[in-house]
């Protein structure tokens, strides 16, 4: 199990590295897809196969695809714009600081004794039962959220607002 976890973790880290370092934004999206496949692998090792499959289906099959479309629609002409070294350094500093702090906390936190539940309690049936049962509000709300997302996306994308294209330029 540990081996599986390690492999999945490596895949996700490599993907994430690609996703954040690739200058070509399209490559970064593919990196994200790889990272998320890795994350899905981690989910498998954490006994949540359904969530893992959802991760692949939604992130890789859906969100990544939409992102690629967005890249194609927006950043095609200059996909390889690299940020300045100083900026990357500063960002790296902040990220590393965060990582160090988090690692310190993890290293010294006491999470209490671990225990295991029977696998049946983890099953998809249980998820389904909970979704229909005690978490049904979350279930229905989610459908509304997604409906609103669709409506919002359509509204945003389709309607041209009256805002001039070069509002910023006019100000200066």
């Amino acid at each position, binding site marked *: 199990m540990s081996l599986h976890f390690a492999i999945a973790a490596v895949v996700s880290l490599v993907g994430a590295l690609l996703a954040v370092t690739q200058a070509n934004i399209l490559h970064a999206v593919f990196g994200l897809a790889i990272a998320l496949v890795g994350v899905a692998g981690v989910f498998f090792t954490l006994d949540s196969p359904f969530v893992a499959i959802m991760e692949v289906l939604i992130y890789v099959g859906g969100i990544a695809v939409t992102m690629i479309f967005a890249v194609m629609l927006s950043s095609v002409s200059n996909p390889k714009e690299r940020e300045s070294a100083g900026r990357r350094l500063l960002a790296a500093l902040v990220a590393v600081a965060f990582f160090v*702090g*988090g690692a*310190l906390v993890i290293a010294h936190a006491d999470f209490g004794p671990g225990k295991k539940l029977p696998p049946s309690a983890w099953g998809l049936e249980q998820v389904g039962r909970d979704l229909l049962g005690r978490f049904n509000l979350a279930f229905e709300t989610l459908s509304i959220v997604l409906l609103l997302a669709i409506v919002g996306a359509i509204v945003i994308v389709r309607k041209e607002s009256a805002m001039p294209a070069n509002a910023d330029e006019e100000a200066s």
Partner: protein
Amino acid sequence: MSSTSIGLVLLGAPLMAFFVALVVFRKNHLAAMMTVLLSGAATCASAVFLLATKGGTPAEQASRAWIHAGGTSIEFGILLDGKTLIMGTVVSVITLCVQVYSLSYMSHDPGRGRFFAFLALFEWAMLSFVYSPSLMQTFVFWELVGLSSFFLIGFWYRKPSAIAAAKKAFIMTRIGDVGLFIGLILLFQTAHTLDIQTLNTMSVATGNFDSGRIELITLLLFVGIVGKSAQFPLHTWLPDAMEGPTPVSALLHSATMVAAGVFLFARFHPLFMQAELTLTVVLCVATFTAVLSSTMAMVASDMKRVFAYSSISQLGFMLMGLGAGSLFAGYFHLTTHAIFKALLFLCAGAFIHEYGTNDTVAIGRAGARKLRVITLGLIIGGGALAGFPLLAGFFSKELIIHSLHDKPLFLAGAYLASFMTAYYTFRVIFLVVFPNQDSAVQVEEPPADSHDDHHSSSLPLHAPILLLTVGAIAVGWFGDSIASVLGLVAYHPSLPEMAPAIGVALGGILIAWFDFGRKSAPQTGFISKLAPLHTLFKNGWYLDVIYKKLFVGAAQAVAGLLFGTENHVLDKASDMLGQGTLTIGETTGKAQSGRLPLYIGLAALCFSGAIIALGLEMMR
């Protein structure tokens, strides 16, 4: 069923109706039917509450925390005591009646889906207000009542006068609301609780509050009531609110909107009782309003307008009763008035709808008495309003007059108003029942929005009128029950005590008969012989004009003054100030770079620092 679940139906059904109607508002019929059905459910729920309560049962409260803020949790829920039970039932029944009535009345209006949605919203707001257990809920729904009435008055939003009326209603009540809001905040600050029951209990025990404070608070609350219940000097919005559809007027004038003010007074009755000064102010204002608006009603030619003025005067009556200390009298009149006033408006609406004019004379001449059911409703409702013996209004009005017996000045005002009420009410009745085709009276108003089709015979139009007619006859006899629900003891004035009032009322009717009823009556009214007075009354004592002159003039004067000051004194100073500000702004604005990553980065850095600190702390 627990009271919580009934309460859920009671408050949930109208809200649901609102949303359903809002969603399907293009499907007018569906929206209307859904609203009526859900409103019916709410009515049943309120009736269940009322019937399940035996007199004097202690108040019951069911609420859920709504917002937690600091140590206080603001609750949303229902409070069941005598006041809410009666008022809630009256509100829901009358709203249901009006909605049923509107099924027919609005049947050809293209926007009636929207109309029913707003009706439902109105009902929900009013019920939530009435059943409110906390100050916060009270205030929120007080405002929502105002908002929904704004929507309804301005329902025909293509009509400029309707928009103007809606705005006027909204703004004038807003003036009062400012007072109310300050009052409520002060109250909370004083009592440290939002719970109404606790408040009232606390206020009864003397010494809890500083009396000066109480007077200030109650006066501020009364300002709100003046706005909402259309008392002088903020009464002018109510007659203009006639621009909305007639069912709206019926609702507005009887059980909702204006009643909210009186109900608020009753709600905080124990508190008001602690403030002598406020009570005197209340009595003064109420009496003056009652007389003043009655004079206007005597000469108004628009049938709805007559009833509108009468509403103002009757509200004055209620406040007189309450102000005089008799909760029962005022509350009883609130109940009876709701019923007969709704009835009168529905009848007026039916006439207007049928004959396409608002003018009483024109309606009478057009043969309105042929609509027997409606004419009957008008007579009964009018009788109740006039205090005709044994009808609903009679009993409650007697009680109010009785409660004033030791305040001769106000008593006299009450008698005067009562006389005029009888007069103008029967003026309308006689004009409708005994139209005189030959009389010289000019029809003043142009025809209202013409309605090509007649629905006067349809069941939805008649059923509410009949129901309310029965109510206007019967409710007066239930004084004892109402008193017992309120936890009070009913008081029955003896016949001698009632005699003057009866006499005044009958006198008013008699003069009305002389002026309008008898054969070859002039049908002009005695006021018109006193031309200046007539003009004065007709124009509502020129209050609107005065307000305009007063406020606009004052504002202009102030503006002129300020303009001068600004030009000659402040300009230089402000220039310097502006320059200074700009310099400061430019300096500090550099931090406001608009660079999102910078902001996030700083935040993340701070957060990271905090985490590192936490980690180091844990290491130790």
